[in-house]
């Protein structure tokens, strides 16, 4: 009996210790508690954490930037953690729940509003002394606000456009029409020529399911945003038309996007290993960037060992709204609301978005930088492919309108739901009208039950 008590005592002691260990993390809050946090006194060592998602290349770039930041700020130590896209969000949610959220985190549009509206992010206007928004446009600064509060610093924007493999078109003797004002019909014609002239060796394109693509499609038809506050404002008719397009592209004789099976494999490659896509294998002529335009372009160029690509706008019908385009927020930097060192964290973000050397090194890895100075410098020294990218930014900013409303809390699953419904349609399990109807009510329900 005695030994049993001892075991229980041992367990109790261990658990007490564990609680003390985790507890002391939360209780030892420093700082004055006032609204304007200050840097730690000189000589005091401060350790902050930085989390991001991304490829190996991004890991190297970020590590090198952080090293220079630490050299410039010898009392600040930065703990770095990174993961892939999927794992990142699991880990972030868990660490927020466990009260050990990273001080500085990379943020995405689809989750931004969820985290901000649940009080997990720090209001950056309190640390404006350390974090300069002066190098980005007012629109870019506003993109980091939810209900008027600055919860994030937008570090980059992404573009949607069509990547064209010119090698294939030249080989098949196909000429592109004037793409600055081409129609969906013309787009489909080019794709059809690719399939017909190559006897099916190449596919023309693939249907996309990205929120960004659809948002643009809807804006071409005069609807500004998929969301209006917490209301899903997807036009069911337009959604059904979009889905019908995906169906038409994958059915009939010599479909321009290949069989449904083919498409089904392609989308998972786009989401997973880009090297497995037909674009990267040089078997597909045209592809939508769907928000990953710059990184996809770089990877296709690397995989095929050629820079013979062209970036052109998404087609639009003659009746399309003039200023339908917008540049989607690429990535943000945010500070955890629970951070013990918001001032130091702000300094780090400032370094990541405003330091010239860092901007030069990062290039377009995180998208097109919002920092105008950095952007100008990059454009001046860019290789031909990147040069095209920056020219494309200029071209598209002329037809850009207001940004749509941010994705509300509870709707971050939109892309997956969209994909699923699109698959139902393409595999003949559902009709576009019904799928669109179900999609809208599913997302609305998810938003309604989220908060």
């Amino acid at each position, binding site marked *: 009996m005695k*030994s049993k008590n001892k075991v229980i005592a041992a367990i109790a002691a261990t658990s007490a210790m564990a609680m003390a260990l985790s507890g002391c993390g939360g209780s030892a809050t420093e700082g004055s508690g006032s609204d304007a946090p200050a840097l730690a006194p000189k000589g005091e060592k401060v350790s902050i954490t930085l989390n991001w998602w991304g490829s190996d290349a991004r890991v190297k770039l970020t590590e090198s930037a952080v090293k220079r930041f630490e050299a410039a700020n010898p009392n600040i130590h930065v703990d770095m953690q990174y993961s892939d896209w999927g794992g990142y969000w699991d880990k972030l949610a868990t660490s927020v729940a466990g009260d050990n959220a990273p001080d500085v985190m990379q943020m995405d549009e689809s989750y931004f509003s*969820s985290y901000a509206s649940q009080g997990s992010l720090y209001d950056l206007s309190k640390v404006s002394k350390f974090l300069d928004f002066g190098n980005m446009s007012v629109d870019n600064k506003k993109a980091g606000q939810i209900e008027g509060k600055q919860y994030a610093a937008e570090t980059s924007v992404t573009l949607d456009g069509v990547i064209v493999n010119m090698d294939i078109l030249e080989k098949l003797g196909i000429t592109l029409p004037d793409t600055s004002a081409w129609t969906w019909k013309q787009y489909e014609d080019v794709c059809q020529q690719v399939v017909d002239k190559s006897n099916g060796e190449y596919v023309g394109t693939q249907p996309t399911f990205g929120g960004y693509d659809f948002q643009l499609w809807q804006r071409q038809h005069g609807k500004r945003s998929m969301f209006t506050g917490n209301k899903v404002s997807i036009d069911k008719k337009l959604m059904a038309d979009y889905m019908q397009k995906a169906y038409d592209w994958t059915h009939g004789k010599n479909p321009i996007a290949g069989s449904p*099976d*083919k498409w089904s494999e392609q989308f998972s490659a786009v989401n997973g290993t880009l090297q497995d896509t037909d674009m990267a294998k040089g078997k597909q002529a045209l592809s939508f960037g769907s928000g990953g335009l710059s990184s996809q372009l770089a990877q296709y160029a690397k995989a095929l060992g050629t820079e013979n690509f062209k970036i052109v706008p998404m087609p639009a019908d003659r009746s399309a709204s003039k200023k339908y385009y917008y540049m989607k927020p690429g990535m943000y930097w945010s500070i955890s609301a629970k951070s013990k060192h918001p001032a130091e964290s702000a300094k780090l973000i400032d370094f990541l978005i405003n330091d010239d050397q860092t901007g030069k090194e990062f290039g377009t890895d995180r998208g097109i930088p919002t920092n105008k100075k950095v952007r100008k410098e990059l454009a001046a020294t860019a290789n031909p492919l990147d040069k095209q990218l920056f020219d494309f930014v200029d071209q598209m900013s002329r037809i850009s309108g207001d940004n749509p409303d941010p994705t509300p809390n509870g709707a*971050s699953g939109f892309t997956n739901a969209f994909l*699923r419904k699109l698959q*139902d349609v393409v595999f003949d*399990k559902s009709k576009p009208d019904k799928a669109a109807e179900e999609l809208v009510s599913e997302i609305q329900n998810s938003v309604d039950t989220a908060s």
Partner: protein
Amino acid sequence: MSYAVEFASLVKNRGKAKQKHPDNKAACGFMAPWALGAVFLSLIPMVASVVLSFTKYNMLTSPRFVGLQNFAALFKDVRFRHSLRVTFTYVIASVPLQLLAALALAVILDRGMRGLAFYRSAFYLPSMLGGSVAIAVLWKMVFGSDGLFNNFLNMFGLHLSQSWIGNPATANWTLVALHVWQFGSAMVIFLAGLRQIPRELYEAASVDGAGKWRQFRSITIPMLSPIIFFNLVMSIINSFQTFTQAFVVSGGTGGPSDSTLFYTLYLYQQGFGQLKMGYASAMAWILVLIVAVFTLINFALSKYWVYYDD
């Protein structure tokens, strides 16, 4: 079967175990890591998930008590019902197929062929690897449109460009195949069981003129039934919990078109994707209930076909 004997003797002596053992301290020491793990990594999270299943909890703010709302919502959730359908299809197809494969190979290997140790290991290997991410990735390539499986069929003149993974009609069946392929651990247990069947029974039977098939039906199966029962129970429990394969093959979506939306995958999507931890906890407990019911039915039915020789 010795563990059963041991267990029985323990039960019989449980009142008398008062005398102090000198090894008790050491035993407790050795058990401590397990005990700590069981309490902190299993018991406490389990209790927490019971509590959470009655709350709305998005991990970013504190949980809010909502009573039975999660459970009520579950029964109205179309995708929840769909995930049950997918999972049941998978379990009902893959468990018997896997056990049949395991039993058949165990019987063949038990005939004492040359190089037995090699074959045993070779067949066992997949079940060590089968749950891993690497194999799931491999599977995705094997059953892709340009994959090994289609290349193999091409050799017989079947020119297919079908993607077995990419098509909702076949995607779940590739995962069934993956499960069946991992018959190794069940096979090893069957082999051990076959070795325990007294040879005299077969000799006596053959003297009485029983053929191979009759011997298999009337000696092997009944003598092996406790082992079959054990494998059946474990295999059902395991396949209800299948997650990794579906996650990797579908890229976490359960696609194409929700055809691989296993119960656990949907649970994960709700918990970590939608940040609905309360809902996910409720789902987890319903799964516990389902598995428990299946196991109880198994035990109830076992007295009609499992033969304990004592």
